[in-house]
């Protein structure tokens, strides 16, 4: 009797194991969940800024300190990635221009807009996986705005945002696969994005309720247009150098320039 019981136990475990191994496990979709299910649509009445009174904020972000040595990415672990580059590829963590201004700094209105809500743009923002790096390295989107993710590489990637305030997801993208469209329903500065297949691949997405943000480029400059007059706290955020803020008051039709300086980490 006892032996029979043990035999049935063994058979049950084996069948369970088989079911687990051979079970459904659908192939991760590459194009699904494109609709903003957790709707990023504005909750209240949408604010429209009168172009006649709109102000503009410009400026640049500089680096203070000894220029950090660029760190080379080792792509030799995967031939298909290494073959895409003739020159060495460096991490885009601290990218300095010749005049010591910084690229990849997210500058945005942190405070001052109160409860104003803004329409979600219909344009999609593209984040490409090209040459086994994310292009661009940093993007900003509004809550509910679609991010279109491409895989232009001849290899498989997985795209994996690691948010603190939004839902985490991790999706594989095979070479030549369809683009993936996703939205983020909650404000968050910043969401790190990584590829676990290629651990050097890192990117950042800033998600805001409003359209007043910019990412510094080759000149280390930024421009935020169409701001309603008011008193604002502006933050410049960098993935390695941290963040710094400044207060600025903008009158109607103002065009002001503010500069930020980020210091090398001690």
């Amino acid at each position, binding site marked *: 009797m006892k032996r029979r019981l043990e035999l049935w136990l063994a058979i049950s475990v084996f069948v369970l194991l088989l079911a687990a191994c051979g079970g459904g496990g*659908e*192939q991760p979709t590459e194009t699904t969940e494109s609709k903003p299910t957790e709707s990023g649509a504005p909750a209240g009445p949408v604010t429209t800024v009168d172009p006649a009174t709109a102000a503009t904020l410009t400026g640049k972000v500089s680096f203070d300190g000894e220029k950090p040595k660029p760190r080379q990415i080792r792509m030799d672990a995967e031939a298909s990635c290494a073959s895409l580059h003739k020159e060495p590829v460096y991490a885009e963590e601290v990218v300095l221009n010749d005049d010591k201004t910084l690229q990849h700094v997210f500058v945005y209105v942190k405070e001052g807009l109160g409860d104003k809500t803004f329409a979600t743009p219909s344009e999609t923002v593209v984040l490409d996986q090209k040459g086994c790096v994310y292009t661009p390295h940093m993007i900003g989107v509004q809550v509910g705005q679609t991010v279109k993710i491409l895989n232009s590489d001849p290899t498989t990637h997985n795209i994996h945002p690691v948010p603190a305030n939004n839902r985490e997801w991790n999706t594989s993208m095979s070479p030549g696969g369809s683009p993936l469209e996703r939205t983020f329903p909650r404000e968050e500065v910043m969401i790190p994005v990584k590829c676990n297949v290629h651990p050097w691949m890192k990117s950042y997405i800033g998600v805001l309720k409003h359209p007043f943000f910019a990412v510094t480029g080759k000149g280390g400059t930024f421009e935020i247009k169409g701001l309603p007059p008011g008193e604002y706290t502006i933050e410049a955020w960098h993935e390695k150098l941290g963040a710094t803020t400044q207060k600025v008051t903008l009158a109607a039709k103002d065009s002001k320039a503010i500069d930020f300086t980020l210091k090398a980490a001690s």
Partner: protein
Amino acid sequence: MQPRVELPTQNRALHGFAVFMVGCTFLLIIAGALVTGNEAGLAVPDWPLSYGSLMPPMIGGIFYEHGHRMVASFVGLMTIVLAIWVWKRDDRPFVRRLGWIALAVVVTQGILGGITVLFFLPAPISVLHACLAQAFLCIVGSLALLTSHNWRHGPRHAANDLKGVSMRRLSVCATACVYGQLILGAALRHAKAGLFWHVLGAFVVALLVTWTVARVYKYYAHLSSLFRPAIVLGILMAAQLSLGVGSYLVRLASREDVQPGVAMVAVTTAHVATGAAVLVACLLLTLQCRRWLAPAETQLQLTSVPQGATS
């Protein structure tokens, strides 16, 4: 020298298979450590299949994650064989139960691995997954010892335990502390927490293990069943302490790296693997102490009482 009793071929084969399982499990722990070291835990987003198939492209982090799954699947299947084999061939109820416990643990371990993937590496589950792996190694290690010739058919006791601090108890205490230290190590590795406690644990474990090994060396050098694992344990412990310091230094040096470096992965993986080896060596020594040493309260009249064994 303890007497060696010849057993039927089928029992020797079972013991050999259990030893083989210990080796496979050790490789599985190394494969798991390589996944963590290479930050490849989520390189395969789906589970139980990998990219919807049994064999995804083995590139980058997928190589480590799917490689770990392949070794784990093999160990899982072999554990079914081991459990059935033990159930069929071994007449000791607790050994037969241990075979089924091994199977239950490996199935649980597989499910925990799946949860870590589907829920993006929640730290408590990752720590549990790491600790259960060590527990599984202990179970198959115990099965290998329990099915060995000398364990089954040697004399009841070969020597008396020490009075005062009993070897039977000291070795249990050392094994428990080693396992506790592995839990602290897993917490440090997966939850990035508790460096101080892990370092403190290293001192405690080093002290207990050294004491245990020294006492075996002093009092039971003539008992190969105790002496051999004790010497192996001592060597492994020294290596593990060096690897611990090495892991800390290499982590410190690579904390700003763009990607996991070869040196960092190699040293930290060796630290995890040697930790597992220390645990299983300590456990086997504990079992051997309980097998061969007569409890102090029931001292036996043995023909050859070890020198100082009653001190």
